[in-house]
C-alpha cells in the first residue's frame, strides 16, 4: 500500500538556535540521488525542514555578482543564519524589503557547510519568510520548548535510532538543551504582558480578529467584582 501513497511531506521541526547550531551531521536514508538529506539534531531527531520564529536583527546582501541575502534571526537561545539567493526568489525579495528589527517566521531547509578551518556551520535556506506578530513568536517559543522537551524525554528510549545516532555522532549532554528551553520559557514570563510589538505588531489583514481577541482576553483577566 505504502508504495501507492504520495511521499509524505517532511515535518518542519521546532528547534532553538542553540541546538540547531550545535548540529553538523547530515545523512540520507536511501541511496536515491534525490532522497531527502537530514540534519541530525543533538536531541535525537532528523530534520529535513525547520520552522522558526524570531527577530530579524540584521540583513545584508553578501552576494558578489548576484543578490545573496543573509539574515540574522535571533531567538531566546541564539542566532539562526538564513541565506537566500536567486533560487529562493520569494525569500530573497522578502529579505530585501524587510527593515530590521522585525519578528519573522521562516520555513526552510537546514544546510551545512564546512569552513576553511574544518568547522561545520549550519544555516537555513528559506522556503518562505513572513512578518509576524509577537504572539506568533511567543507561541513558537512555547511550542519549540515543548518539542525539545519531548525529544529529550525520548532520547534514551529503546528503539530511538536518532537518539542512538546522536550519542554516536555528537556525544553532547541533552541537559543543556533542557536548560535552554527552560530559560526561553522564563524569558516569556518575565516579559509578561509588556511585549515588544504586542500592540503594533499585528498585521492589518487580521486587525479585526486581534481586536476581538484582545477584548475577549481582557474580559477573562479582569477580576469580577464580588457581590457584597
Amino acid at each position, binding site marked *: 500500500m505504502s508504495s501507492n501513497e504520495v511521499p509524505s511531506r517532511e515535518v518542519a521541526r521546532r528547534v532553538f538556535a542553540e541546538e540547531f547550531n550545535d548540529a553538523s551531521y547530515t545523512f540520507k536514508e536511501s541511496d536515491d540521488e534525490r532522497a531527502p538529506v537530514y540534519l541530525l539534531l543533538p536531541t535525537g531527531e532528523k530534520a529535513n525542514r525547520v520552522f522558526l520564529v524570531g527577530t530579524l536583527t540584521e540583513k545584508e546582501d553578501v552576494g558578489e555578482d548576484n543578490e545573496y541575502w543573509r539574515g540574522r534571526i535571533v531567538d531566546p537561545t541564539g542566532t539562526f543564519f538564513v541565506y537566500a539567493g536567486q533560487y529562493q526568489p520569494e525569500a530573497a525579495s522578502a529579505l530585501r524589503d524587510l527593515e530590521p528589527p522585525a519578528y519573522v517566521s521562516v520555513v526552510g531547509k537546514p544546510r551545512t557547510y564546512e569552513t576553511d578551518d574544518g568547522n561545520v556551520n549550519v544555516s537555513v535556506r528559506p522556503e518562505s519568510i*513572513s512578518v509576524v506578530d509577537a504572539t506568533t513568536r511567543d507561541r513558537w517559543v512555547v511550542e519549540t520548548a515543548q518539542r525539545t522537551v519531548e525529544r529529550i524525554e525520548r532520547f534514551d528510549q529503546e528503539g530511538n535510532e536518532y537518539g542512538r545516532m546522536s550519542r554516536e555522532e555528537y556525544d553532547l549532554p541533552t541537559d543543556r538543551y533542557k536548560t535552554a528551553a527552560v530559560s526561553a520559557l522564563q524569558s516569556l514570563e518575565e516579559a509578561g504582558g509588556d511585549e515588544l510589538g504586542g500592540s503594533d505588531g499585528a498585521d492589518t489583514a487580521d486587525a479585526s480578529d486581534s481586536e476581538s481577541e484582545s477584548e475577549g482576553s481582557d474580559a477573562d483577566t479582569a477580576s469580577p467584582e464580588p457581590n457584597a
Partner: protein
Amino acid sequence: METKAEASETMSDLRNHAEEIAEQFSDHLDIDADDVEERLQNLVDEYRVPVDEARRSVVNSYLDEAGLDRDELGRGGNEEVHLADIDQDEQWVDVTAKVVELWEPRSESISQVGLLGDESGRMKFVSFTTSDLPEIEEGKVYRLGNVVTDEYQGNFSVKLNRTTSIEELDEDIEVGDDATTVEGALVDIQSGSGLIKRCPEEGCTRVLQNGRCNEHGNVEGEFDLRIKGVLDDGDAVHEVIFGRDMTEDLTGITLEEAQEMAMDALDTTVVVDEMRTDLIGRYYRVSGPELGRYVLADDTERLNEPADAEAVLIKARSI
C-alpha cells in the same frame, strides 16, 4: 417425551447451523438454508455423525464448490461494523456504505480507489485489479461483505478482495461528518490555490490546468477561490483545503476582489502571492471532515492568544 424434546432441539440446532452456513456462503454460492439443512440432516440422522463434524464436512464441501480456502471465508459471519469503529489492522468485516468519491487510481494494480461513507464517518477504500470485482459507482450504497481493514501511518482504510461480496442497496445513507480538529503553523500553500477556474460541466467542478479540464478538455472555466494549505505542528503535517467561504474569511479577499486583482495585474497568481504573504508562518486551528489526506476546513481560527508556557515549564523541570 424426552427423546422427542431432544430430537426437536437437534432439529432447531441443525436449522441454526444451516442458516449460518448459508449466510457464510451467500456471497459466494447460490445456496439456501433448506439445502444445507438437508445435507446436515443426512449426515446426522443417516450416518450418525456428530453435529460439529457434520457442519465441518458440509462447510468443506461448499468451500470446494466455491473454490475457496477456509481463511477466505473470514471467521464465519463477519461483524458488520461502522467505518468510524474500524481501529485495527487486518480485520475481516462487513460494511454498508455509500461511495462518496472515486479517485483516479495511481497504479495499474488498483482498479478502484476512493472514499466510502456511512453514518459514522468516511474511510478510504481500495479495490485491486487482480480481485476482478465489479466496479462500484459514486453516490450508490452497497453492502460490502468480507473486506479487510488496513492501517498506514495511523490512517485506516478498507481493502476489497476477491472474496468480497458487493450488493447494491436501494437506499441512501446520510454520510456522517467525522469532523477532526488540527492545529499548527501554516507552512505552505500548494499549487492550485488562490484564484482558480473550475470546469463548468454538470457535476464536474474539476480545477482547470491552463484552461483544460482533465475530463472535458478546453472549456470556459468558472472562477473560484480555494487554498490548499499545509498545517505543521512540528510532529505531523496536515493538508487542509479552504473552500471559497473559508478563503474569503481568512484572507479578507472576496472572489470579486480577487478577479479585479488578477485583471489589474493581467495575472491570476498575484492573488495566491498575496494570500501567502498574509497567511504563511502563522498558527491556525482548523476543524472539518477528513477527506482522504485532506481536512476540509469548516471552521478556522487564527491562534492569537498566548500559549501556555507554564505547563511546558513544569514538564521541562520534571525530567
